């Protein structure tokens, strides 16, 4: 098993099936890319770099988006 921490929760993937990039991760989770911003181990990843940003096991990923607020 390989693990990524996503929004504070550990997620396990069978060996070889862990998403290789942010874009792949979002696709697996069925999250609309257009409105999301990501942080990998505390560093912001711009949307245009989602497809290029390689993930490695054990990384901590934050996926955030806008919600209603005052």
């Amino acid at each position, binding site marked *: 098993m390989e693990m990524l921490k996503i*929004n504070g929760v550990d997620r396990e993937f069978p060996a070889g099936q862990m998403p290789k990039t942010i874009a792949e991760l979002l696709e697996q989770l069925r999250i609309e890319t257009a409105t999301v911003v990501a942080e990998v181990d505390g560093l912001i990843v711009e949307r245009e770099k989602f497809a290029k940003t390689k993930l490695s096991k054990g990384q901590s990923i934050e996926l955030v*988006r*806008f919600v*209603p*607020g*005052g």
Partner: protein
Amino acid sequence: MADNLVIAGREFKSRLMVGTGKFASNSIMSRAIEKSGTEIVTVALRRVDIENKDDDMLSAIDSSKYLLLPNTSGARSAEEAVRLARLARAATGINWLKLEVTPDPYYLLPDPVETLKAAQILVKEGFVVLPYINADPVLAKRLQDAGVATVMPLASPIGSNQGLKTRAAIEIIIEQANVPVVVDAGLGLPSHAAEAMEMGADAVLVNTAIATADKPEEMAEAFKLAVQAGRMAYQCGPRAASRTANASSPLTGFLRSS
């Protein structure tokens, strides 16, 4: 002559900013924003809910008509606020930011020390910073010196509908400010918004009072009219209150002897 609100060199016709929280649905929010006449709407940044993803609200806001003003709500320290600010900028591509640092969950009062610290960092990073603050004239000046684009003193605690409890301090802030003063938080009625505008506030921000009304769209319009009326009255040079009466009718020519 046009009486536009100018923030960081950008002009706005409306002096009402609207928050997008607490609306019953995205469509009600969208119609209320339209009715309010606003050009600036605030949004918050949160983790994507991976199990429940149908929460995209941006599709309900036409970003060609409204400036999205991300806030840093939820931040309890300067460090957290700066992190949220950078994420917000990455998400929108715009560098406008409503800075709020509210460590106290009960009254949600802003932390002046952390807010100033975050503002200093963010201004240096090129953000247009609109800090939410308690109505503290000294803090407002310090933030102004740090290069913020506005100051946003609270009228009363967020969402409390109490109106202008901090009136005297906001008067001093307005007197001393050389950036726009936006009265934020606690304005529960259009009359509260009008009062803030009459005393010379440059704009107000309203969320709860509109979003939680029985008829949010109509309430949005009521706030729009109140802000316009208050602004107009301010420009007309209102007279001060006096303790005694001042007759409006002539005090001569009465129909009585001697």
